[in-house]
């Protein structure tokens, strides 16, 4: 198709009412909100162009409905090791399952969002794209994959898609059928339109930056409180806080030294801004997360044989970037670069997301987060995570940070205050549960609350211990189980607690409890899910398949929600 085809102004396809074709479905499968934003902008532009469409988030969409759709536009992000976002797990599973929906008459297109520093770049988008084709659906045009700096590529895809649809759809759809189908998302009272956004963040003052692990803990975990002042920012328990961080000036200077670049030299960034290179490295470029693109680009510039070999072997390259910070690459193979060459190797800085640890019903115009310092040593140099080093080590009360709210579509307390909840979390995964309990306590919600928390040591790593004690004393926290992995010979994790209390867990589920899981995605969430399936099978007397179906049903009815990373 013609990518340059601009949307004809005011193509009000009002003449075409003879056929009541079903509206175009825009399906967003989003983890951090980027895919949702793209889908929303697509929907807005379709609406403006008079193309009837419905925006659904994958979490609100029943996969079997797909059989009844005519045309679907999928915007899908990818998380972790090539997995679909949490809200799209059910849909993904259904498409790849034994009885996939009938989609032979379906037309579709896919936009993938991802991060090229991960091995399975845009895998979820690729999965949806290839599977729909396999099942007989008709691809309208080739999938487009976007990297972290997705905006320009995504915008282009949206324009292209809208243009194509205007050309092909406007004659046979009811233009103003839209109102009835305006997405649940737009009207969702729990997702507030944000005044301050990723692009226009709010500058908040830090009220508290308090370490909440003991002096003997192996982890530096901080409780941070930000003053929202009179910004009018609203958020819900389950939302995330986006933090625009600044890189460590010491790390920047090390990189400048390795490359022989004068920090005062000007560079032009991808968005056209011209800045001093040192300033750009601190404020605008990603220097704490290595990427294949960086190593490949640097290999070309240096013509270093070891780097060239790595660049040619994608598996080895993945392992290498996982354990070799950019600074170490430069230290090991120093090479004089121009300031512009250096910056062109680097990606734009992206904000980091933290699950919010407070509820406004309790804290008013504040927002709290729980941050674990990422720290490791390489080549005898101590490195810290970009945002966690910034927050935990370089800022103190009174300092200012650029933040914004990233609403969550699917990590939400039950609507019914009587509904019991089971909260399973490890490490900083406890954060949203503090928010949940603050809200339930402030509103005197009567549903039972069961916390299952795991960390290394009872005496050193019991995050928010005094608060949980208070909540237990007032019986707001009605049941609790803790797994301390290092307090005994054998490792005990949250999944062991689930198995140990399987009977109780099953009883709570029978009472309609919602299950929430927050924390590490790669191990904890998987082990917890396996334990849940085991409990459901053994306590419910179900076969493995039926237990699986039971958990799917919980997921689809939003009774099993995860915030894992």
């Amino acid at each position, binding site marked *: 198709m013609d990518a340059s085809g601009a949307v004809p102004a005011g193509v009000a396809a009002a003449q075409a009412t003879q056929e009541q074709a079903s509206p175009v479905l825009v399906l967003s499968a989003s983890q951090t909100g980027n895919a949702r934003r793209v889908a929303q902008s697509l929907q807005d532009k379709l609406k403006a162009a008079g193309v009837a469409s419905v925006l659904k988030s994958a979490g609100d969409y029943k996969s079997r409905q797909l059989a009844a759709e005519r045309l679907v536009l999928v915007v899908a992000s990818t998380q972790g090791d090539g997995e679909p976002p949490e809200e799209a797990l059910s849909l993904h599973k259904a498409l790849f399952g034994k009885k996939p929906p009938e989609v032979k008459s379906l037309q579709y297109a896919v936009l993938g969002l991802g991060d090229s520093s991960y091995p399975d770049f845009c895998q979820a988008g690729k999965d949806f794209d290839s599977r729909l084709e396999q099942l007989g659906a008709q691809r309208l045009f080739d999938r487009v994959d976007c990297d972290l700096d997705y905006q320009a590529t995504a915008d282009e895809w949206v324009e292209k898609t809208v243009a194509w649809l205007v050309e092909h759809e406007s004659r046979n759809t009811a233009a103003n059928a839209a109102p009835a189908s305006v997405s649940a998302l737009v009207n969702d009272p729990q997702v507030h339109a944000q005044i301050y956004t990723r692009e226009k963040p709010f500058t908040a003052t830090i009220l508290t930056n308090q370490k*909440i692990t*003991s002096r003997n803990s192996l982890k530096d975990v901080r*409780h941070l409180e930000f003053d929202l002042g009179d910004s009018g920012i609203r958020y819900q328990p389950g939302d995330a806080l986006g933090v625009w961080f600044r890189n460590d000036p010491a790390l920047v200077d090390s990189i400048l030294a390795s490359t022989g670049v004068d920090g005062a030299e000007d560079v032009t960034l991808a968005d056209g801004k011209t800045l001093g290179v040192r300033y750009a490295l601190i404020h605008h470029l990603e220097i704490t997360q290595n990427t294949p693109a960086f190593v490949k680009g640097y290999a070309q510039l240096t013509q270093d044989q070891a780097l060239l070999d790595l660049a040619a072997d994608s598996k080895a390259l993945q392992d290498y970037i996982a354990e070799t910070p950019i600074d170490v690459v430069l230290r090991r193979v120093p090479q004089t670069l121009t300031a512009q060459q250096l910056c062109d190797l680097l990606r734009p800085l992206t904000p980091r997301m933290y699950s919010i640890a407070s509820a406004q019903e309790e804290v008013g115009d504040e927002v709290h987060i729980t941050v674990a310092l990422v720290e490791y040593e390489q080549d005898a140099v101590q490195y810290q995570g970009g945002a966690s080093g910034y927050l935990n080590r370089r800022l103190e009360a009174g300092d200012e940070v650029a933040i914004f709210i990233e609403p969550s579509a699917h990590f939400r307390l039950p609507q019914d205050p009587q509904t019991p909840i089971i909260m399973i979390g490890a490490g900083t995964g406890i954060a949203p549960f503090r928010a949940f309990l603050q809200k339930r306590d402030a509103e005197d919600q009567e549903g039972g609350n069961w916390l299952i928390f795991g960390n290394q040591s*009872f*005496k050193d790593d019991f995050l928010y211990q*005094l608060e949980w*004690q208070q909540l*237990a004393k007032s019986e707001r926290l009605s049941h609790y189980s*803790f797994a301390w992995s290092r307090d005994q010979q054998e490792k005990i994790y949250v999944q062991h607690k689930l198995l140990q209390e399987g009977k109780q867990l099953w009883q709570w589920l029978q009472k309609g409890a919602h299950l929430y899981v927050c924390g590490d995605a790669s191990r904890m969430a998987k082990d917890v899910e396996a334990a849940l399936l085991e409990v459901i099978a053994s306590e419910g007397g179900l076969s493995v398949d039926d237990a699986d179906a039971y958990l799917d049903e919980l997921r689809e009815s939003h009774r099993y929600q995860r915030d894992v990373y």
Partner: protein
Amino acid sequence: MSEIKAPAGKLSDNERQKGNSKYLRGTIAEDLQDPLTGGFRGDNFNLIRFHGMYEQDDRDIRGERVEQKLEPLKNVMLRCRMPGGVITPAQWLGIEEFAASHTMYGSVRITNRQTFQYHGVLKQNIRPVHQWLHQLGLDSIATAGDVNRNVLCTSNPVESELHVQAWEWAKKISEHLLPKTQAYAEIWLDGEKVQSTDTDTLEPILGKSYLPRKFKTTVIIPPQNDVDLHANDLNFVAIEQDGNLIGFNVLIGGGLSMEHGNTATFPTTAYEFGFIPLEKTLETAAAVVTTQRDLGDRRVPNPPHW
């Protein structure tokens, strides 16, 4: 002569705690299961003393931990029962091993009442420490709280040929005056739960509410007075004939411990009551203890000695 009675008046809260403790059980077992805290709640905080432990915390970091939203670093100090302070080399090695591997400070602290203490035992290690001591042939029953504490005996066995005989009596006195409740075995050693045989006669010597205050007993072998026959509640001075122990001169009513600034609790020395033959030893000990039990002042915690 008018009948002597215990001072009348409102009993101290300690008395309620002891009386309601179900023979020193309280709800200690439930607190052991409570995963939210490293400490003991309510009455149990005091009741564990009868099992030889004091709840403590690291005061130097108390403020810091509150800031960290962590409770104080709670732990217990445990005092062993060791009549006469005698242990075997194997016991010593065992005692040391536990200290090194399972206490916060890795140390064994020797007391001036012929025993040792572990400091910094975390809650998860409390049952293990009792079980460890048990397999070494030791325990910590009644080394704290309102009971007869560790019984002292002149310490140097080389100094006197009477030592073995006198030390045997120190052990017998200690055993005789121990609480009879099975609470210790039940809570700490997986002992069988004894079916409610608890009656008012379960503790014939100590009674349902135990003693009004702590009680200290010694056995002295002249010419040494290392354990101080005037400074304890009940003191047995060994009397020999032809190299054999035949009985004791008994001194009663001494005590050094005092509450700062409270003149009623100032130290007092023991009075000599006279000679008793060996076979009257346990009876005498029980008679003195029950006198303290029945006539002691229970209106304040830690009342004057007599």
